[in-house]
């Protein structure tokens, strides 16, 4: 077979492009809908908390409940109808991923019951950084560096908001950085990686 230098360069570029596209598309398929859902919920809930602080419990209870229902629905759509990929040699992977989240939140609430945060900002910063830690773990588990970076960046923004931003503006800051970070990343995946 006669392959010129240009052909070889072109073929290798094509290989790299398709491999990257495949990985990105799968990350977008599996993670994108969850990021959009929870990013939207965080943006709305933080803004709601900033402008209607007296309803803070209602806002977060209702939005979290809707988020859980949405999460179950997305899981059903992604895996119930048959997923884009499967690994017969590791059938427990999906089950382990599903089990990870309730176990994680169970532990988060155990830690909360021990630490007993003094106010809403401390409680929120604790939960957001804990959830971002879970993103980092999931990212490492599935080899998605974007999830790892997203988790670390949002954690950084949360720490800035917690330590440097006046408490009155904390929710506005978190709506833009944490909620906007998740929502923006999810939308970017959906628009650019499909």
């Amino acid at each position, binding site marked *: *077979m006669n*392959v*010129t*230098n240009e052909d*070889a*360069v072109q*073929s*290798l570029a*094509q*290989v790299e492009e*398709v*491999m*990257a*596209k*495949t*990985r990105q*598309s799968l990350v977008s*398929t599996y993670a994108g809908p969850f990021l959009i859902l929870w990013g939207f919920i965080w943006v709305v809930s933080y803004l709601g908390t900033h402008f209607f602080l007296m309803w803070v419990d209602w806002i977060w209870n209702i939005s979290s409940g809707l988020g859980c229902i949405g999460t179950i629905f997305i899981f059903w759509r992604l895996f*119930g*109808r*048959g*997923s*884009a*990929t*499967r*690994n*017969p*040699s*590791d059938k427990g992977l999906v089950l382990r991923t599903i089990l990870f989240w309730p176990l994680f939140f169970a532990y988060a609430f155990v830690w909360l019951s021990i630490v007993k945060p003094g106010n809403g900002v401390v409680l929120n910063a604790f939960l957001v950084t804990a959830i971002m830690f879970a993103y980092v773990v999931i990212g490492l588990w599935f080899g998605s560096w974007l999830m790892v970076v997203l988790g670390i960046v949002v954690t950084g923004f949360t720490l800035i908001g917690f330590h440097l931003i006046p408490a009155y503006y904390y929710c506005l800051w978190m709506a833009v950085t944490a909620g906007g970070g998740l929502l923006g990343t999810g939308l970017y995946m959906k628009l650019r990686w499909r």
Partner: protein
Amino acid sequence: MAELDNTIHQSVRLQIMSSLVALYAGEEIEFVYLKKLLNLTDGNLGAHLAKLEEAGYVKVKKTFVARKPRTFITATGKGRDAFEEHISALKQIIGAQQKTNLKGK
């Protein structure tokens, strides 16, 4: 010296193998998903998969999920090895050309 693989070198088959090798070993991708990912038609993807399957480079599994027929594709060990060798051969061609260019200077 690595050798180029005639079966893999064809552009569409190179894309298919690149996509399959990007998955974890043993991981399978769904036919319709792969078709959309690579912007191919049913017939085009099917024909090239048949060639790759004939060479033993991919495994095509037809199955039913929630009573609907679904086809999953995976790269075999032989296919992954052949792909790696093909990539090495392409790199050697580029390396050889770079050496020639340096000698000429």
